[in-house]
């Protein structure tokens, strides 16, 4: 098997060489989330302001009196990355209009983890998306509250053992399906929504670049492998992300003006065991339980493919973002 299928061989040379998220940050060995941020920043470039929700990435990057960021960066609290980001956007907009700062396109990007986005932060996220700020929101989803010690979130997949959804004698890990936040964002009529993973860096960076160009809100949901929380080998971070996509556990797609498109095609889904077996958090699952999860994965994948094959783009419908802009 060629492990870099779908990967343009020498393309890494084309990416921005500057590191906006610099060495010296204190993420765990093999942290997928730190890698995702590093790649995201390269795609965004220097004219970017980051609003970060509390979580691993905020903690590991901002030990006063130092910072890992070579971009303007702000953090207030756990659940308000979207709220702070929308304020930054509104502030810049007014100051630019009034000639108090250079008239230059500066993109505001709000980032938070799955807990900060899908659970405690979903209200501020929904509000910001509904208001239509010119802001990209990136959810770095490592499928549990890793910063506080691997507690279950609504992003945790069915069956996964966490410290609050343990694999008990009676209850085998988390008993609920993962919340589909990208779909909730699509329901907000956001012009650009995508899923991504650091294991497909060019796909991820292209999506970030696309989202950066959107005049209005956009959302990227980035699966970020966490070796600590998933109880996987640190060197397998990239591989696990790839397996999540190849098994259909986490399909990579984008929704542009309402039109779904798979960006990483998978000819035939691999069995989910290939993915689950490499992670300690699923090690307690019985074959029956795995089969149950497998059925749901197929079902969700087929639902997605229906949308990919069936929908018009809003641009076909003469949709325009904003009444008077």
């Amino acid at each position: 098997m060629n492990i870099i299928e779908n990967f343009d061989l020498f393309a890494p040379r084309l990416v921005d060489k500057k590191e906006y998220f610099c060495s010296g940050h204190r993420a765990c060995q093999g942290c997928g989330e730190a890698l995702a941020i590093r790649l995201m920043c390269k795609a965004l470039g220097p004219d970017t302001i980051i609003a970060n929700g509390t979580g691993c990435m905020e903690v590991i990057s901002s030990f006063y009196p130092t910072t890992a960021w070579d971009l303007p960066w702000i953090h207030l609290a756990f659940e308000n990355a979207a709220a702070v980001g929308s304020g930054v956007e509104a502030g810049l907009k007014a100051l630019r209009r009034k000639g108090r700062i250079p008239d230059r396109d500066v993109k505001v990007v709000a980032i938070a983890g799955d807990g900060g986005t899908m659970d405690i932060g979903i209200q501020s996220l929904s509000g910001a998306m509904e208001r239509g700020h010119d802001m990209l929101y990136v959810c770095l989803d490592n499928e549990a509250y890793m910063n506080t010690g691997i507690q279950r979130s609504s992003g945790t997949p069915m069956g996964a053992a966490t410290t609050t959804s343990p694999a008990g004698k009676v209850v085998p890990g988390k008993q609920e399906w993962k919340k589909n936040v990208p779909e909730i964002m699509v329901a907000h009529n956001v012009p650009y929504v995508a899923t991504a993973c650091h294991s497909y860096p060019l796909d991820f960076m292209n999506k970030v670049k696309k989202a950066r160009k959107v005049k209005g809100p956009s959302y990227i949901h980035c699966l970020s492998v966490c070796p600590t929380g998933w109880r996987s080998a640190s060197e397998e971070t990239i591989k696990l992300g790839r397996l999540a996509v190849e098994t259909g556990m986490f399909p990579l797609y984008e929704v542009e003006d309402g039109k779904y498109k798979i960006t990483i095609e998978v000819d035939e889904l691999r069995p989910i065991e290939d993915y689950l077996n490499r992670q300690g958090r699923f090690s307690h699952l019985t074959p029956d339980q795995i089969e149950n999860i497998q059925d749901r994965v197929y079902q969700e994948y087929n639902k997605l493919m229906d949308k990919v094959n069936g929908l018009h783009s809003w641009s076909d419908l003469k949709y325009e973002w904003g009444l008077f802009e």
Partner: protein
Amino acid sequence: MKKKKWPETWQEMNPGCMVFEPASARSYLTGSWKAQRPVWDDSKCIKCGICYIFCPEGCVSQDEKGFFRADLDYCKGCGICAHECWPGAIEMVEEG
């Protein structure tokens, strides 16, 4: 002059704990975390740069000849580069 790790007095604190020096986290050397380090066999390297792109630390860079090396001051020894290097040019070697 050695840079102070912490402000010594409250008077030295920046207002709002703002940090005015970007990328100053580089003063913290995470290289001490690693139990193994990557070693490149340049004869097998095809200079694709996959090790560079997948490094969570951003500590892999290309030298003048186009070969890649990790800055061991920051490399945490996660092993991703060696695992992802499909021509097999990187080997993880135990520290010490």
